[in-house]
């Protein structure tokens, strides 16, 4: 039976990571809607959600036939690659070595490019707009699906992780539908920083457990790994920020 630490960290990590991905998808879907019309935007997004549901429906049951140790190992290693990649980027953004992701700028760029792109209509449908919405929702959706597997599969908490992700997507979609603007005030890098720390910790935990490591404290070791990665990440930011500021 998973303890409260595991439950909170699984649902929290899944919600926060999915929130970031949903915000990125929303920015492009809004750009398509305003630049090319809502029909291609919503059709493309809906088609991507359908494709995603099909992928999950086909691949999901396969997970139950994979031995738990093998699943933990594969998910653990992929989560390490995914989480440390996010954390590295978040550190470099926090320091100022790479630019912060700006939803307003991304929205303006997408809207401009989509307005300038030629119309390729067939059967009265704008395929450029539809394909753009389809691609972003599918790619961000695949990331969300992976995050759900990454944080939930190792402990059989896929339902909880899915609920966290679904809640994030519903919240972002509802806000997007209400304000019709990209969610630029979401502290995206802080969220990515936190999620990178959590995913890296989960990855370390699953990988070790799959190799027979009996972590002291069981699931509570994940908290120790969160502290470890957070300390390393914040230490790197503290070390590099003055140098980056001196260069600017």
């Amino acid at each position, binding site marked *: 039976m998973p303890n409260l630490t595991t439950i909170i960290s699984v649902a929290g990590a899944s919600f926060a990571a999915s929130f970031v991905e949903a915000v990125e998808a929303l920015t492009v879907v809004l750009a398509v809607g305003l630049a090319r019309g809502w029909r291609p935007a919503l059709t493309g997004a809906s088609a991507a959600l359908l494709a995603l549901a099909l992928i999950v429906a086909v691949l999901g049951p396969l997970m139950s036939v994979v031995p738990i140790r093998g699943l933990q190992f594969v998910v653990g290693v*992929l989560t390490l*690659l995914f989480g440390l990649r996010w954390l590295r980027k978040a550190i470099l953004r926090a320091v100022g070595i790479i630019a912060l992701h700006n939803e307003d700028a991304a929205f303006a760029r997408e809207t401009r490019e989509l307005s300038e792109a030629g119309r390729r209509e067939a059967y009265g449908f704008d395929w450029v707009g539809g394909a753009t919405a389809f691609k972003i929702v599918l790619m961000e959706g695949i990331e969300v699906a992976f995050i759900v597997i990454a944080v939930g599969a190792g402990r059989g908490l896929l339902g909880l992780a899915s609920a966290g992700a679904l809640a994030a997507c519903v919240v972002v979609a509802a806000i997007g539908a209400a304000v019709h603007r990209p969610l630029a005030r979401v502290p995206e890098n802080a969220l990515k920083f936190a999620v990178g720390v959590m995913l890296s910790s989960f990855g370390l935990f699953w990988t070790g457990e799959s190799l027979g*490591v009996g972590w002291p404290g069981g699931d509570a070791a994940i908290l120790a790994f969160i502290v470890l990665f957070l300390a390393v990440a914040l230490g*790197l930011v503290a070390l590099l920020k003055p140098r*980056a500021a001196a260069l600017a």
Partner: protein
Amino acid sequence: MIATAVKELIGLFVDDELLAAAILVVVALVSALAFFGAAPGWVIGLVLALALPAALAASVLRSARRAVRSE
């Protein structure tokens, strides 16, 4: 179209190739130790817990050095 999709899918996991390679080398090393029973579990755990944050730090510092050189 498919090539682009595959590239983007790989891009979800690999950004800095050296960081990805370092992670895979560490995992391969500890897997070999575990498979051959060459080290107790706590050693494998310790290696993972030390080597992975170290790989992250090395990758970030390398990117920072590169940024300084390009200024």
